[in-house]
């Protein structure tokens, strides 16, 4: 009798019957929203990566005719030869999509949504409605960004940083017309989406932790998402204001960023504005954005490395402190993008100082990861491989940051391929690896099935080899003085001797692109035909694995289990198994060995 009553109560708890629309489309359930983020993010990722392959073809074999250009770009590639404006549009949209749509929304949106409630023991986000609105704003901004690809004069083409006056004046380049308007609208909506999401994450982490889940017992994933959300709330509004001011300059004749301009035979009326102001506003978001992208990936990695090493993460408290230190420093280093912008050189000194400080918490993180591996019992699942790969690219890319963050050295490598190599390794590839690691690891939680591990291995190894194959040689052409965003290098015979490096890079890029198809196939196939997952396939300690495999509204049937220990009791002496879930009470006389 009581069981029946219990069931009845359960149904009541579910409020209402779910229709197809409320379950799959306008869902307020964090797990569904997380899948929506992931799938939208992956779709955008396919577009972003495809674009990069197209401009890599142009860079390796400049001004050659490719059938694929003719069919994909149509009038913008007459006779299959890519137009210079299209090249610029491709790099611009590639950057925008990868940074914001894939690595911000696709990564943080997916895993913050999935893991925050599940790992802190909450039934859902603090506000399901805001969460739903956040996703749909993101979706709308994606639609607008995609739509901008189809306007008459082409999409925005001023680089993903869209510095005015190039981005402000339709006369300056074709992409600065309707394409730029749509870019700005899309990004304004994106910022709104991101703010709603972030506020929700912060409130949820602060208020909805289950009994026993103190801040010092939070898994590092949650710490990373939490701190990321805070940086997002602090810095994204500044991008919004920059975008609004730019819209004013473009459409209402104000002069925030423009002054003394003569273009297309005409003196424009703008007086007294400064593009440098825009640069400050943009990078006030733009730099923290790097960490908005990277910290969730590092959080995911921390969790996966600990679980698969069967060891506690080394130096939990230092890891938390580094996350917070990186977050704080990230908001005061933006000027290192502007050493040679014409700002006072003294400011350059200050920003060099703060920038190189970031290397300290970053080094702590890298060494702590390495030490976590030491004397472990490594379970080399695909997720683990991607996590180790992340640490590798994070180190390789991070180290060159020491050169770029030094104002003096930046003079000669600023805006060259050296920079492209640096940030692709340290944030692009690293965050992408974080995304992949997260997908492989939490796929069973998201879809109730397992991904094929062998395809995962092929995906990792081909990607890992190619990622270095693409970006390692790029340091060389950057040090040779080759500027980025050049449609072709043939205008300078001086660069003829690096043409073959570009061919190597493109070949690696094409193979890497092909490897992503393996992932895509594995992902889609496994959703429907993957092996059914056990409740806790990776024998992990965190709370999400105590919830039933079948998704249910409210996450746990009945009461939410209480938390009794931190998330990293792996291979603890005195325990039978090499893992102890956070919900298992301490044994008599057992010490909570935490810090």
């Amino acid at each position, binding site marked *: 009798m009581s069981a029946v009553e219990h069931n009845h109560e359960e149904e009541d708890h579910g409020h209402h019957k779910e229709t197809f629309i409320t379950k799959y489309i306008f869902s307020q359930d964090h797990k569904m929203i997380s899948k929506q983020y992931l799938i939208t993010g992956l779709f955008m990722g396919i577009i972003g990566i495809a674009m990069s392959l197209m401009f890599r073809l142009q860079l390796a074999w400049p001004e050659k005719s490719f059938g694929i250009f003719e069919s994909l770009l149509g009038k913008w590639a007459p006779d299959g030869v890519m137009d210079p404006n299209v090249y*610029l549009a491709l790099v611009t949209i590639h950057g925008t999509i990868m940074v914001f749509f894939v690595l911000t929304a696709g990564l943080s949106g997916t895993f913050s949504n999935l893991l925050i409630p599940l790992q802190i023991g909450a039934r859902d986000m603090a506000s399901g409605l805001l969460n739903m609105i956040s996703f749909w704003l993101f979706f709308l901004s994606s639609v607008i960004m995609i739509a901008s690809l189809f306007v008459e004069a082409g999409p925005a083409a001023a680089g993903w940083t869209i*510095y005015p*006056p*190039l981005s402000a004046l339709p006369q*300056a380049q074709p992409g600065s017309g309707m394409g730029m308007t749509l870019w700005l609208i899309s990004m304004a909506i994106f910022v709104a989406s991101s703010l709603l999401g972030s506020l929700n994450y912060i409130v949820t982490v602060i208020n909805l932790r289950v009994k026993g889940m103190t801040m010092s017992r939070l898994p590092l994933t949650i710490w990373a998402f939490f701190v990321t959300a805070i940086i997002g709330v602090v810095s994204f509004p500044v991008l919004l204001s920059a975008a609004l001011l730019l819209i004013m300059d473009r459409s209402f004749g104000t002069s925030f960023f*423009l*002054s*003394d*301009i*003569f*273009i297309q035979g005409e*003196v424009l009326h703008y007086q007294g504005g*400064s593009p440098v102001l825009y640069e400050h506003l943009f990078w006030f978001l733009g730099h923290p954005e790097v960490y908005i992208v990277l910290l969730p990936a590092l959080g995911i990695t921390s969790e996966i490395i600990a679980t698969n090493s069967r*060891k506690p993460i*080394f*130096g939990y*408290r230092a890891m938390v402190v580094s996350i917070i230190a990186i977050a704080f420093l990230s908001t005061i280093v933006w000027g290192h993008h502007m050493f*040679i912008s*014409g700002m006072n*050189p003294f400011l350059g000194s200050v920003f*060099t*100082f703060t920038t190189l400080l970031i*290397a*300290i918490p970053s080094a702590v993180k890298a060494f702590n990861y*390495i030490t976590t591996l030491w*004397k*472990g*019992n*490594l379970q080399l699942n695909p997720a683990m491989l991607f996590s*180790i790969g992340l640490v*590798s690219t994070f*180190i*390789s890319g991070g180290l060159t940051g*020491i*050169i770029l963050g030094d104002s*003096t050295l930046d003079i*000669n490598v600023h*805006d060259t391929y050296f920079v492209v190599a640096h940030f692709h390794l340290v944030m692009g590839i690293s965050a992408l690896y974080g995304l992949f690691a997260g997908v492989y690891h939490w796929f069973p939680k998201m879809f109730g099935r*397992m991904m094929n591990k*062998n*395809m995962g*291995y092929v995906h990792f*190894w081909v990607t*890992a080899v190619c990622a*270095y194959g693409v970006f390692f*040689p790029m340091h*060389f052409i950057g*040090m040779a*003085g080759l*500027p980025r965003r*050049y449609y072709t290098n043939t*205008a300078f015979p001086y660069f003829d*001797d690096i043409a*073959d490096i570009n061919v190597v890079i493109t*070949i690696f890029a094409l193979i890497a692109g092909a490897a992503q198809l393996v992932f895509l196939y594995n992902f889609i196939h496994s959703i429907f035909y993957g*092996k059914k997952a*056990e409740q806790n*396939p990776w024998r992990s300690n965190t709370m999400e694995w105590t919830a039933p495999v079948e998704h249910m509204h409210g996450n746990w049937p009945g009461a939410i289990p209480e938390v009794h220990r931190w998330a990293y009791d792996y*291979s603890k*002496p005195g325990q039978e198994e090499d893992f102890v879930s956070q919900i298992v009470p301490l044994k008599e006389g057992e010490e909570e060995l935490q810090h």
Partner: protein
Amino acid sequence: MTAILTLMVLVLIAISLWQVAKIFEMSQTSKNNSQVANDSDNDTQGKLMFAFLAFLYILTLYSFWAWGDVLLPAAASEHGGEYDSLMWISFALIFFVQTITQALLHYFSFKYRGEPGKRAMFYADNNRLEAYWTIIPAITLAGLILSGLYTWNDIMTVEENEEALVVELYAQQFNWKARYSGQDGVLGDANVRFLQDFDGKNVIGIDATDPNGLDDVVTQELHLPVGREVIFKMRSQDVLHSAYMPHFRAQMNCVPGMITEFAFTPITTTDDMRLDPDVVAKVKKINKIRAENSKQLVADGDEALEPYIFDYILLCNKICGTSHYNMQMKIIVETPEAYEAWMIQQQTFAQVIQ
């Protein structure tokens, strides 16, 4: 080169085909495969991790062997030496840390790969160890920051002085112009509002009412006398540009509405630089490539490429529109006599607008 590349591609394709074949083989045989790494996976993947370390080292060595010659061209400015030594110190440091940390990371991934019956060591913390890797980077970085800032101040402090040559670099979509201050050593006022004066002959908008501007000289090439400090004043008439002179370790953005500055002293004339062994080797290499490409062009009925002669270059390094990739100016560093002789032949602003 092409042969090696083709070979590499073939090997990679072969490896991936082999792997794909293996996938199908394995997914056929293992019906009770849980898709969680088992002991044999751990073993294989751990060994691959070690192989990957070898790959990283080989890639690094190969890159330096094959492309080391393109790194940092010989410096031709006074601060270039200082810049280069700071660069190489940082590089050596990075290289050292990279070699060690990648080795540890991948070696541990190999060495501690999961084995049946093994249990990991419960090792959660060690304050002393963490203090080491907080303090050591901190000290190293402090050293780098200090020497970096010292050099930075040295390079960026532009002091007006009698001896220095003042040159304006003027950027527009998609070319560069240079303006010399003439006899009086003072650049006349200028603004985009004056660009349409004198039927467009006033190409960079000099204020004709300012007497300082009348003897100014506007040129399409940048000639610099060797051994004399040059103070550049940068302007742009339309969008952001960046004046990038890699041989001189010099770069500064050109911002509409403001004048930016950069100064350096060229120390090697173009003629001398052409005799530099590295430059000779580079030119030879480039001309070999161009001759190769020309064969193809001639076969297709096009004109052959002209042989390359070394020149210093000024490039635009801030995205500025359609022809950003071709916004360049030739820089010629010459003896003071040659420079004077060239300067005399140029028309002053007064002569141009007459």
